[in-house]
């Protein structure tokens, strides 16, 4: 049996939405045991879906990643198979407890004593409202590592600002740095790259603190102000202002480093965007040699040898014209065929891949990227795979997307060793459940 890098490490996941769950998912993939306490009387929006029991109309009208439930049906346990939830809750365990009551907090304290890390990314004030502070955790376990992910930090005038990743990216400048340069920024689609970097760096932070604890015996509190954390992604714009006082704006699909051409061009499409059947190919030319290779790969049309385009400066100056010429060519091409032809010539080109097409991609199939997981409420499906391959300590999907309260017996009996009487009492009190209370919408 192989080792896992983080085997023996236990993490309590008090996370919501995406940024926190992504961090704990990465830790779980590396072998940590992730335990999520869940409250049968409180539904956390945007974690196990928008509502515990959404009306069918809401599911039908939501975009796929929010409303794409199995067979498009709400079914009996919608909280167990919301697409965003299942994609973040592999390799995790779930038990239920009502943290608003003293006996619930007692249970949490006992679990903290048996754990290494507590990770939370709730709205500022939520944990304090429950009485979960670093001091309280430290009293239960002096070696505990607590990670908190407030949107703008725990102090200052923005400390209580409510935000998803998309809002704090707006504050950090991202929303004005992306989008069509010729369009109003209100057309910008909501994205969540801030959740990606904060989640990944949160996992990194936990491991850094574990490394420190191994050396010193000390636990600690870590604060990831998610807005501050997102800044790395806008390095070029930030450094341009820092070094030159220049304010960059949206440059569409063009290269921030000025290499041309760079764009997304139409390809032969089996249908239209109305049914998500429009196809596009992204092409990046990084230097003059690649430009020449590109011209040859597309059959050496006269314009490809136009001297105005022979240098990067010339291509940049005439980028609009080039976009039209390239589009006229690509519009008659199959996107995958053109990728192979251009990549074969050393030019970076890829289809803009709609998600459903991932499952037939030869590269992902060749590498065995997808993992089949069976969850009782949802059935068997192929999920996206891990972010890295560590051959001697492999990432395995040992626990499929966890069902609500699936590990009540494990946590209460095996980890906390509660007596039969206490178990019965907690169950009678509604702490131990396998679905949300009927009062929860």
């Amino acid at each position: 049996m192989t080792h896992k890098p983080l085997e023996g490490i236990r993490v309590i996941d008090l996370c919501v939405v995406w940024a926190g769950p992504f961090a704990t998912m990465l830790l779980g993939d590396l072998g940590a045991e992730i335990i999520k306490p869940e409250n049968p009387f409180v539904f956390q929006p945007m974690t196990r879906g928008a509502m515990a029991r959404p009306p069918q109309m809401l599911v039908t009208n939501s975009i796929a990643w929010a409303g794409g439930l199995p067979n498009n049906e709400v079914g009996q346990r919608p909280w167990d198979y919301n697409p965003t939830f299942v994609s973040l809750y592999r390799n995790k365990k779930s038990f239920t407890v009502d943290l608003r009551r003293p006996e619930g907090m007692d249970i949490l304290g006992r679990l903290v004593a048996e754990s290494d890390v507590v990770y939370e990314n709730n709205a500022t004030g939520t944990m304090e409202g429950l009485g979960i502070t670093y001091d309280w955790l430290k009293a239960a376990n002096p070696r505990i590592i607590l990670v908190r992910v407030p949107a703008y930090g725990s102090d200052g005038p923005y400390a209580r600002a409510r935000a998803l990743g998309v809002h704090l990216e707006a504050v950090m400048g991202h929303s004005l740095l992306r989008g069509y340069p010729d369009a109003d920024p209100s057309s910008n689609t909501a994205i969540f790259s801030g959740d990606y970097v904060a989640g990944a760096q949160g996992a990194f932070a936990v491991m850094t603190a574990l490394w420190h604890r191994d050396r010193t015996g000390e636990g600690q509190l870590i604060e990831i102000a998610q807005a501050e954390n997102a800044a790395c992604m806008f390095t070029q714009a930030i450094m341009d202002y820092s070094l030159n006082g220049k304010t960059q704006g949206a440059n569409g699909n063009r290269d921030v480093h000025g290499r041309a051409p760079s764009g997304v061009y139409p390809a032969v499409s089996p249908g239209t965007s109305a049914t998500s059947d429009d196809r596009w190919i992204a092409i990046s030319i990084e230097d003059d040699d690649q430009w020449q290779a590109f011209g040859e790969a597309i059959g050496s049309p006269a314009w490809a040898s136009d001297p105005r385009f022979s240098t990067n400066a010339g291509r940049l100056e005439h980028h609009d014209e080039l976009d039209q010429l390239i589009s006229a060519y690509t519009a008659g091409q199959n996107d995958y065929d053109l990728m192979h032809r251009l990549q074969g010539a050393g030019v970076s080109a890829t289809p803009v891949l709609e998600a459903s097409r991932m499952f037939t991609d030869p590269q992902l199939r060749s590498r065995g990227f997808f993992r089949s997981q069976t969850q009782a409420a949802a059935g068997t499906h192929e999920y996206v795979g891990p972010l890295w391959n560590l051959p001697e300590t492999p990432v395995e999907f040992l626990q499929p997307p966890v069902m609500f309260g699936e590990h009540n017996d494990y946590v209460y009996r095996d980890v906390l060793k509660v007596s039969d009487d206490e178990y019965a009492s907690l169950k009678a009190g509604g702490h131990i459940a396998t679905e949300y209370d009927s009062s929860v919408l």
Partner: protein
Amino acid sequence: MQALDNVRILDLTHHIAGPYATRLFADFGADVIKIEQPGGDIARQLGPFKGDVPHPEKSGTFFYLNCNKRSVVLDLKTGEGREALGALALTADLVVESFAPGKLDGLGLGYGFFHALKPDLPVVSLTNFGQTGPYRDFKLTDLTLYAFAGEMYSMGETDREPIKMAGTAALFESGAAAAVGIMGALFASKRFSVGQHVDVSLAETHFGGVDRRHATAIAFQFSGRKTIRLGSHGGGMPHGIYPCADGYVDFTNAGLRPNRVAEMLNHAAWLDDPRFSDPVQRMNPDVIEEWNGHFIGWCIERTKREIWEEARRAKVMCGPMFTMEDLFTDDAFRNRGFWASTQHSELGDVTLPGRPFIMQKGGWELRRAAPLLGQHTVEVLTEAGLSPAQISAASGGAA
């Protein structure tokens, strides 16, 4: 002390994703020895440049990515260069590289080289598509990476071309993900003496990533529904991006809490329309449009900062869309200590974002500015026991 100040990383990465991953280690104390070929990391050729004049020591992008590291020039095409690399590997806890697949093997510096020297030394390789598969040799840029593996398809207007993120955000995401995999390899080596060749595909860091790709894939498996491209328009009260007196504000998903929105609007009279509180009517596009007509009127009379203040008071999700000038001049960010500064011989005083997160103990420090090309060649190779003649030969005469 810093948490990782007993870790040494031999860093053979270049461009953006790899150097960002290793910068995180350097920031928390690791001794990251950046190996540059004669001529230097290609990121030295990427703008923005101070004064807009290209110069290998004046790239803001390179600067940001390589603070806290030491630069050593080695000519890996020579036997002396390879021997020096071996000497450094013996002192390292981990090697990370981002050459095209097979490139280091061709130089005799593949995994076997390091494994023979030190069996528990992990080597992490960052490549576009991984070490195997039909696309192994394909090129990826930030644009083509995000187009193929990220969620670009869903971004932009339905009837226009899909659109990327800003700058090279996708590569930074990959770098952050790679840092976690590198840390995993480091733990496996430290705890269990496991050496291994870790294969990180930038594409897979996006195919498996949290910015919707994780969920759009399984949503298709569950429901047969594809991803749509829909801009940010409509659909909520409020939802999406709105113009205001001096720019724009983002109210994505704010309408999920109508009571808070009413509080933010100080319970304006127009909110009393019974259709605006009827759960079914709230999904009616005509009613939504009418509501938004009122709301835009409210926004346009206020600045983005004024709107954000009202939203914060009422706990409404909101993000004012800042420019870089707004961010740099914002007192709250400055007072929290978000910005750091350091001095550089070519760039002078440089201000840049500081800590990615705050640790109580052993945390972030800016110990040194980004290195000049080969600034530490003599220092590092002398530490490794090389003679001046060996150092000169290994660096191709650069030192």
